[in-house]
């Protein structure tokens, strides 16, 4: 924290005191948003489900009965409890084992893409919201170009150039989030930039990039929390979809998206290796969306109560 030190006694500066206090209040607002969101049932349900899926993904490999690449039965064997809880997949590997192994990649890659999107989007949103004029115009126009491509199409365009590489997919999914996040960050920045504590910092002659990152950024955390939850939901869907299309995780990896693709042909005789990954991806996205929705509602509630925004 680097709020300007204020010498009381100088009449002009003394007036700025309440502005600084206000800045402190804004800083803790995201904590308020969190606690307000936690009061809502939907947030608790979302967090609960999310933790269960994370637990499956993290602990899964330790409790899996077989190795994820071991052939344990004829292809597409039906479930046989207690030996094969969910049957076998298209080349005869244990489905339960592969389900237990397959969550890590989806969750980690989706998280990485979301963090990249947030990093790029927030930086651009802060700059455009605070710089305005031609920098704002230029950057927003360029972001419109990224927005003109549906996220999956943009990713496929780059995959067609550089091949199906994991880092590329994570990077492009992240970048395709950036314009949407930048719009939210920009709107919040525009509003905060009008506040007294920013005006005060400007009057002190503090470097504008310092004001941007030390004064404004902490004040726009709440809407960004909502964005994080929302973009994580979409990242999970996109990353899983790309594996499902065959451009994400490659065989013989155990990955929920890839499992769906590999075992689709056997869906009539052995639905489990398709159904279980689909179910887990589905409830994971519902959980993250519930959390995002809870945060969003908390934010709206707080803004209404405090007359902010």
């Amino acid at each position, binding site marked *: 924290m680097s709020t300007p030190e204020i010498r009381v006694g100088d009449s002009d500066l003394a007036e700025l005191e309440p502005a600084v206090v206000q800045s402190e209040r804004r800083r803790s607002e995201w904590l308020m948003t969190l606690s307000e969101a936690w009061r809502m049932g939907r947030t608790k349900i979302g967090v609960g489900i999310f933790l269960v899926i994370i637990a499956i993904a993290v602990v899964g490999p330790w409790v899996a009965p077989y190795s994820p690449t071991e052939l344990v039965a004829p292809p597409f064997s039906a479930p046989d409890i207690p030996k094969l809880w969910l049957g076998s997949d298209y080349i005869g590997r244990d489905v339960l084992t592969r389900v237990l192994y397959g969550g890590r990649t989806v969750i980690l890659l989706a998280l990485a893409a979301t963090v990249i999107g947030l990093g790029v989007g927030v930086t651009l949103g802060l700059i455009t919201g605070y710089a305005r004029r031609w920098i704002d115009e230029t950057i927003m*126009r*360029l972001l*419109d*170009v990224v927005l*003109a*491509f*549906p*996220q*999956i*199409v943009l990713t*496929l*365009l*780059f*995959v*067609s*150039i*550089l*091949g199906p590489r994991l880092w590329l997919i994570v990077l492009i999914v992240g970048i395709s989030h950036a314009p949407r996040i930048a719009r939210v960050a920009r709107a919040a920045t525009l509003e905060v930039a009008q506040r007294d504590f920013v005006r005060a910092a400007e009057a002190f002659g503090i470097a504008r990039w310092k004001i941007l990152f030390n004064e404004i950024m902490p004040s726009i955390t709440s809407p960004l929390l909502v964005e994080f939850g929302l973009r994580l*939901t979409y990242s*999970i*869907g*996109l990353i*899983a*979809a790309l594996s*499902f*299309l*065959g*451009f994400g995780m490659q065989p013989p990896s155990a990955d929920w998206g890839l499992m*769906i693709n590999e075992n689709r042909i056997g*869906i*009539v005789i052995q*639905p489990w290796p*398709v*159904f279980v990954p*689909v179910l887990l*991806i*589905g409830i994971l*996205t*519902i959980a*993250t*969306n*519930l959390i995002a*929705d809870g945060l969003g509602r908390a934010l709206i509630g707080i803004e209404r109560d405090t007359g902010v925004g």
Partner: protein
Amino acid sequence: MPPLLKLILIRVGLGLLTLFLVSVVVFAATQALPGDTARAILGKEAADKARYEALRKQLGLDRPIHEQYIEWLGGVVTGDMGDSLVQDEPVTKLLGRRVVNTFTLVFVAAVLSVPISLLLGSLTALKRDTLFDTSITVGSLSLAALPEFVIGIALILFFATQVLKGAMPAVSRVDPGLPIYQQLKLFILPAVTLTLAVAPYILRILRASTIEVLESEYVMMARLKGLPERLVLNRHALPNALAPALQVTALNLAWLAGGVVVVEYLFAFPGIGSLLVDSVANRDMPMVQAICLIIAAVYVLANLTADILTILVSPRLRTGLR
């Protein structure tokens, strides 16, 4: 110039600018390829320097990049997008029937999703906080979260392979030899998948905007004037609530253009989405370029339409007050 016309012209100009930049990005995609088209066509024979140079000259690759771009763009505008690298035929010829299939699919999905979501969106707003509202809201929140392939596979498991075995076809291989209206059954599951994926967004936005308008001062004013409730809703509330909904509707129709990629692949539906997936796997760049350009153009035009409709329908904007 009247302010309304000026507003619309500015939007059109910005839309054209975006389209232009999109074409630059798509063109640049091939330029970023390791090696060029000549190398891609010749493969190992590219080691033969003389042949490689000759082909480069023939394809015009030895000319400055901006000249190549202008020629490529000219081709795009006149409907010549080059030849597919995989099937030795013009891209536009291979695309024809598939474009029709995809647009039919998107059209069916739009016809299903827009009225349903508009109706449910305004009804939930009018019957706010009732059991009806809560169940629709929670249901749409969950649906909105689900990736489209999750919805599609759930429908396949339910209607095609497991629960109601054979009620619907699990794959939608539309036969190019038959007219579309004879094969509408093949469009149902993919269209319903797209509908369920897109409708929740329109519904939620419309609900929120209707509520906002119903609580606004001018609606309260209209009520205080003693206008009948029906008139308050029809003349004052709904037109203003419709503006953001139009925007979201067009936006989501644009989203459908991207959503078709995964859904068509899932149902083996012969449209431009599944062709995009195949072309990316085969690195058939002219085809990838053409499809990306079509999808992006649809998106930009849908957005533009949304903006213009918003300007025309919203009394606040129409009078030039922002």
